[in-house]
């Protein structure tokens, strides 16, 4: 029971972490608070669903389509919608307000399209739905795969940001945007890349979620909220922070649902959030782009 709950919690937490890493890039580097983030997650879930049910393309192959598509979508959205806001923003706070308003609108546009195309029903498909033995307990293979994929993406992103000059430049923009031009970094371009990379991670998260969870055209907001909680808990812009915070949140939610009451899951989520916000407003691990 305990091991089962822990494993389910880690799987869920891995997904939260994966989804949150994209948001932490968009918020921490591009400084855009993207309320439509969860809609991109759900759009990718529907994409994976369609690829699988209509053409028999496995979600793992679907990732190779969804992630670049998410990148392209983020790239275009930044260029068309966000750049004008960035250009006219007086400071960080005014950009935050403008981006919240603009992406709030975008949320309903994407959601509306999804509702028209896919309807409001709960959607899921059956992929790798076989039990495998892990640490003496059983776990659906699709969940195990979801966890592995989350780990691969997290590891890849971490290496990209810390071991390459390009990634180091993105972190430099995150910690000191005013100084970045002094070393020849085009901050606008870096922000656009970070936003697009966030879109790719949102899409990857959506595909992974669709492998083992039921979703609807309107469930995007749940993922935006949870990703936001994880981002704040982990420290804005902090990749390892998002990873740890995502895992913590997944495990806590699963334990509360298993041992207390499934109805208390959301309450527990927000309780953690409030505690962090009140005691460690810069996150459990600080606002350090490491």
């Amino acid at each position, binding site marked *: 029971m305990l091991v089962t709950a822990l494993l389910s919690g880690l799987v869920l937490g891995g997904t939260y972490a994966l989804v949150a890493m994209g948001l932490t890039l968009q918020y921490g580097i591009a400084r855009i608070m993207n309320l439509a983030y969860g809609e991109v997650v759900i759009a990718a879930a529907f994409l994976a669903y369609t690829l699988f049910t209509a053409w028999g393309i496995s979600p793992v192959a679907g990732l190779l389509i969804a992630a670049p598509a998410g990148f392209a979508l983020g790239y275009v959205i930044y260029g068309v919608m966000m750049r004008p806001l960035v250009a006219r923003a007086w400071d960080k706070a005014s950009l935050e307000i403008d981006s919240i308003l603009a992406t709030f609108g975008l949320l309903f546009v994407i959601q509306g399209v999804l509702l028209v195309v896919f309807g409001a029903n709960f959607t899921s498909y059956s992929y790798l739905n076989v039990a495998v033995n892990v640490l003496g307990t059983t776990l659906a293979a699709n969940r195990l795969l979801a966890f592995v994929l989350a780990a691969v993406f997290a590891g890849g992103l971490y290496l990209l940001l810390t071991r390459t*000059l390009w990634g*180091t*430049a993105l*972190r*430099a923009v995150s*910690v*000191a945007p*005013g*100084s*970045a*031009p*002094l*070393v*020849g*970094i*085009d*901050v606008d371009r870096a922000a656009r890349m970070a936003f697009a990379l966030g879109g790719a991670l949102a899409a990857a998260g959506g595909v992974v979620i669709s492998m083992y969870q039921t979703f609807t055209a309107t469930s995007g907001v749940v993922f935006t909220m949870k990703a936001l909680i994880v981002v704040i808990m982990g420290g804005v812009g902090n990749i390892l922070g998002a990873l740890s915070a995502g895992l913590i949140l997944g495990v806590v939610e699963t334990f509360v649902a298993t041992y207390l009451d499934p109805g208390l899951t959301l309450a527990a989520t927000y309780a953690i959030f409030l505690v962090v916000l009140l005691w460690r407003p810069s996150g459990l691990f600080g606002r*350090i*782009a*490491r």
Partner: protein
Amino acid sequence: MLEVSNLSLHYGRHIALHQLSLKVGKGETVVILGANGAGKSSLLKSIAGLTKPDAGALISFDKRVITGTPAHDVLEAGIALVPEGRGVFGDLTVEENLALGAYAKRARQGARDRQDFVYSLFSKLRDRRSQYVNTMSGGEQQMVAIGRALMSKPDLLMLDEPSLGLAPVVVGELFASLARIKAAGLALLIVEQNVKMTLSIADRGYLAEAGRITGEGTAQALMSDAAVQRAFLGAAN
């Protein structure tokens, strides 16, 4: 090499720079002296592309017009700025700061040699290369800022009050390093309050006052100039 003419700049209704002109020759060390608020930082920022000057200004570097060019492209043209307050990436390590210094396309080649030069100039940085910069002293952070600027392979290095807030002994080391950078062939444009030390390594200087250039001369002439002595060198009467 650097030619600035008719440079004006205003913040709202406040005029910070007024039709200012100056030159820096190849490999020359030029100092700008002036009281707080004279517009020295605004001048360096305008050259670096961090602020947009009023229409009519002409800034050219190596015969190339760079007026209105964004800061990251000015760096590519060969001008690096060590700003007032240093502008280091405090949450990154020394090594990461230096690596980012070579982020510009012009700087990718030969980055290793330049890093060796920086480490030979500031040997402390070599020992501290994995330290986070915001945990370092002011003098060490200034070394990081200068080292990072050198990594971009500049032809002209601009420094905005590099000795500000540093202990006297550290200031001495700083100017010794600047002399070595000058000896390596770079042109330097230095804004300083520490007039005596700066004039001792400078070739030429300008006096700035309320957004205008009010005087210029060789370093030697400025050193013995009565007005300069009164204003900056603390001479009696």
